[in-house]
């Protein structure tokens, strides 16, 4: 028993098993097929280059002739994002509580709400937008509803995770006092989860501003419609103005939200 044995060191690389080798071969074959299906073509890229250069050159200087209506659309875009995110957050909070492991009233409730939220999240923005345009008509309301769905899909999930991560000591202490379930959630769970809830909420706002731009393309309000029109009319200088404004809007929102994050998180309740 006590005799010392020296074994050989292990192989430097593990030999792949037949199964994993098969999977690898299949994957490489599929990738090759995908490259041709994706329509990648060097000649087309080369002939397209002058066009790209031409469009790019027409973009400077950006046009200022429609600046007022454009600024108005940008404002509407931001307002849609703001309102959509706020409503989305308000709906997400109770959903998150109901689908969190530690506060759900019943496992069935939890799994039903989780699947609902996953469905909302995995349905693409544009599908929601087309659905709402068809049901409530063209305009910002359809866009706002889309952003509400977008926010629910994102926030409910991450809110639930933040709620699950809260230390269970303080909630237990309030339960021991005899506080109601609602009181435990409001007085202990939510305050403890607050930094991460605020963080998620601000990310949702940034995300909503970015996606609200696209919604206009299908007639759901905001700056996207202006962009589509300019492109169709070959007014690339107008398009450039719009793209620049969108860039500034997104940048501005991200700056302000990171400021807000810092100051909100420091503030006492």
């Amino acid at each position, binding site marked *: 028993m006590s005799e010392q044995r020296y074994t050989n060191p292990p192989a430097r690389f593990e030999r792949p098993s037949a199964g994993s080798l098969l999977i690898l071969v299949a994957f490489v074959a599929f990738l090759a097929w995908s490259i041709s299906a994706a329509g990648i073509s060097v000649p087309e890229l080369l002939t397209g280059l002058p066009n790209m250069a031409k469009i790019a050159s027409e973009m400077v200087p950006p046009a200022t002739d429609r600046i007022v209506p454009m600024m108005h659309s940008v404002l509407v875009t931001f307002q849609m994002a703001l309102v959509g995110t706020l409503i989305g957050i308000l709906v997400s909070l109770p959903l998150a509580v109901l689908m969190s492991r530690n506060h759900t009233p019943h496992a069935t409730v939890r799994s039903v709400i989780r699947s609902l939220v996953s469905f909302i999240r995995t349905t693409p923005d544009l599908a929601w937008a087309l659905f709402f345009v068809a049901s409530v008509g063209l305009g910002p309301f359809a866009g706002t509803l889309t952003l509400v769905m977008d926010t629910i899909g994102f926030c409910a999930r991450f809110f639930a995770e933040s709620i699950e991560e809260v230390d269970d000591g303080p909630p237990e*202490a*309030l339960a*021991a*006092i*005899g*506080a109601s379930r609602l*009181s435990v959630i409001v*007085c202990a769970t939510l305050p403890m989860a607050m*930094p991460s809830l605020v963080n998620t909420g601000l990310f949702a706002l940034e995300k909503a501003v970015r996606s609200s731009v696209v919604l206009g393309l299908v007639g759901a309000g905001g700056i996207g419609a202006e962009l589509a029109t300019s492109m169709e009319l070959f007014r690339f200088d107008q398009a450039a103005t719009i793209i620049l404004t969108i860039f500034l809007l997104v940048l501005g929102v991200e700056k302000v939200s990171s400021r807000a994050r810092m100051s909100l998180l420091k503030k*006492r309740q």
Partner: protein
Amino acid sequence: MLEATYKPAGDTALRVRGLSKRFEGAAAPVWSDISFDIPHGQRVAIIGGNGAGKSTLLRCCMRLIEPDAGEVFFGDRSLSGLRGRELAKARARVGFVFQKHNLVSRLSVLTNVLHGGMAWARTPRMWFHGIATDEHRNYALHCLERVKLGHLCERRADELSGGQSQRVAIARALMQKPKMIFADEPVASLDPQAGEDVMQVFSDLACDESLTLLFVTHHLEHALRYADRVLGLQDFRLGLDASSDSLSARQLRGMYE
């Protein structure tokens, strides 16, 4: 098995019958078949080595952890079978001071103390001190002053020292206007003088307001000085139940062998 025919007497504050607990996946029970009666106003120390199950016993007495078997009575009221609001009402009579103070870190000290008031007023105005009634705010401040922390009422709870946090937790328990106090190593993180002060607060409460006090401690001199009776957990059961007058520190030390 518990005796269904058992008729509790009127002057008992806490009655425990045949309590057993084994955590899921654990080979042995934490302890089993624990029974004791605590009369109103008695001060009881619980001692035992690390992992002997003292914290678990206190939690099971509140049904914060469900015992596997046995029954707990507050007065003549059995806790088994109570649910929701009824269970909350029973729990509200006990001020529970945790080993880890368990304050809500992002809220102010005053709000944390105010939460104790949810034991007797189930109103959303108990949620934050900013929306509470003057009367409730003043009472919370009064409780805070009893642990000598009135001047810190506006501080955020995560900006306190360990000992200060523990005293805030005690103030929160006082805010409950409790009939009993369960304290799990309440002075473990306090300096010796503060520890004596806090034990004195508990002890005075027990005498002045005839509160029943159940506290876990590793300080044997506290068990002897501030308790009328000592319960010891050892070898998965209640290995000691004696009046503190009849005990010496040496006998207590035997519990840890």
